[in-house]
């Protein structure tokens, strides 16, 4: 697989089912070195299954996987030295301290003492965990646990990092620390593949795969995905966004309506034509405070537009 080895991660026709459920179907991915590649999709779309197959702990039914040029199916143990995998809930030993957990995972990968100490100092500082070194892992907050998981996952300096929903349930401050670490890693040439259900996080990725029902439906940069979104996006604000949605949904030319907090996003086939129509419609309903402006689509809009509102994450 000479072509596959140019990529950090390369899969072809990756398929896996559990019983009669097809969890992943014909997934093809080619992730270049140094990318932050995002898997986006609702729960049950197959994100974790893909991650586990890439990590070499779940054999696919069919398909090929190459990670850093190593054939994962043929040589899972060989591939493990190149990659690190952090499951949704990183397995920390709660009765061990922060330092002891790092020590344990470092030793498992056969890191020398000196390297381990230097690396853990660096990672702990980046994660803001230095003051908590002697605390039991079980007594850390959710965000700190997740950061400690990342530190443990990075202790052996992997070239490819697989993160399964790493920031789910993590507070915003810890999330920011987390991303700072990820950006640093990318600078040093690490390829990162992460799955996320957070759309703001998806925006930070260099490329995204939109996953639905086990299939990769779209795969491109966030910008190009936005351009690929059919129609134009309008933001409509008013006192009562719920009432707005009721009136607007189902009107001619309206492709989709998404409630976004204090406003709604309306996707229409032709903005120039539909804006006056909508204004007139709302005025007829007695809603005079509505403001309609063109909006930049976010990944959430794109996802819903491309894959459908019912399956939106």
């Amino acid at each position, binding site marked *: 697989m000479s072509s596959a080895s140019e990529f950090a991660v390369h899969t072809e026709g990756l398929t896996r089912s559990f019983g009669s459920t097809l969890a992943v179907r014909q997934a093809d991915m080619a992730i270049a070195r140094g990318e932050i590649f995002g898997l986006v999709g609702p729960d049950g779309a197959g994100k974790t299954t893909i991650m586990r197959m890439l990590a070499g*702990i779940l054999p696919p039914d069919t398909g090929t996987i190459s990670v850093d040029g190593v054939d994962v199916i043929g040589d899972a143990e060989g591939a493990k030295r190149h990659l690190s995998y952090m*499951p949704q809930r*990183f397995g920390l*030993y709660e*009765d*061990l301290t922060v330092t002891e957990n790092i020590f*344990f*995972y470092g030793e498992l990968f*056969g890191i020398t003492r000196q390297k381990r100490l230097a690396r853990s100092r660096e990672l702990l500082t980046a994660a803001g965990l230095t003051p908590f070194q002697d605390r039991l892992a079980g007594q850390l907050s959710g965000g700190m646990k997740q950061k400690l998981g990342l530190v*443990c996952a990075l202790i052996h300096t992997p070239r490819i990092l697989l993160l399964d929903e790493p920031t789910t349930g993590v507070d915003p401050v810890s999330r920011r620390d987390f991303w700072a670490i990820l950006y640093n890693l990318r600078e040093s040439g690490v390829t990162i593949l992460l799955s996320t259900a957070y759309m703001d996080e998806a925006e930070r990725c260099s490329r995204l795969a939109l996953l639905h029902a086990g299939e990769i439906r779209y795969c491109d940069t966030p910008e190009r995905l936005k351009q690929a979104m059919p129609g134009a996006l309008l933001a409509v604000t008013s006192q009562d966004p719920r009432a707005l949605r009721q009136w607007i949904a189902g009107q001619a030319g309206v492709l989709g309506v998404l409630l976004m907090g204090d406003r709604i996003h309306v996707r229409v086939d032709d903005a120039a034509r539909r804006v006056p129509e909508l204004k007139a419609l709302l005025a007829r309903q007695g809603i005079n405070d509505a403001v309609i402006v063109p909006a930049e689509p976010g990944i959430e809009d794109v996802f819903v537009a491309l894959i459908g509102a019912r399956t939106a994450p």
Partner: protein
Amino acid sequence: MFERLSVMLMKEFLELKRDRWAMFRLIVPLLIQLLVFGYAATFTVHHVATAVLDLDQSQASRSLISHIVATSRFDVVDVAKTDRQITRDINDGSATIAIVIHAGFARELANGQGAPLQVIIDGTNSNTALIALGYLGQIVAQYSAREASAVTLAPGLAGGPPRGLRLETQPWFNAGLDDRWFFIPGVIGTLTLMQVVSLTAFAIVREREVGTLEQIMVSPIRPVEFILGKTLPFFLIGLGDITLISIVGILWFHVPFLGNPLIMLLGASLFLLATLGMGLLLSTFSRTQQQAFALNFFFVNPFFILSGFAFPIAAMPKALQWFTLINPLRYFLVVIRAIFLKGVGLRALWPDLLAMALLALIMLTISVRRFHKSLD
């Protein structure tokens, strides 16, 4: 290899040390169960509630009854006047055994024609019933032997003591036939089996549940290293268990220890390896601690019953006898009883030791093979 194994061990012992209740949980239940077994597990029967119906009212009948009562095996709870009263005593459970002496008992005895004695026994607890019946048989036999010699001597006939067979029993290795000597060594093996199998099965399933197993799988650790790291601590704990409860058995219950401690150590080690293998095997079939619990329950009790701890294997149906061949406890009970009470060595025990070694080898090999580093 040794770095990864030693870090696994270090982690296990750190976790054990941090778990403040671990030592308590490991030791106290064992000691309590040893004491309970030591005092409660006995086949000896005392003070059986007895109803008596003496329709003869002779010196001979009264003498027989006082003989029976004198042993303290039987307590007379009711001196009945009628058959009906006896039936009621047995039915309502106030008496376990009823002795009926029919009219004419003394006369028949004096005639030397043999006097029948009726015994009614509540068979719902067949074990107690049989044991009590056994005692009664002995007492009556003694009594009748004395009466017979009195009868034969009375007329002043020559010819000396009566002829016939006399059984002289001389139990070896446990001259007093003390139940405790039989049970305590068995308890040591049984408790160790129960504790080690469940500890091992649960420890690995817990890593799976907490998610640390998934993390360990993506490291370059080999299954053997992981399994050794997980089981060696339990091996040591098991040896500690066996030593501790053996010492308590010897010092507190005065069970003799005649054998070689080194052979005991060898037997205990092989037994523990087989037991660990069993726990590991159960863990490879369980995804959650509930499943491990159910499997543990499903296997450990039959292993206990089919071990010869209380029920002789020779008396079991053939199919179950075959099953006992894969039961490490079966062999260890032979070994531990022999070492405690008989003091025999390798020459006598090698078949059982070999069987345990084979079982250990088979179970550990299967578990290592079944434990692939995959979530499938």
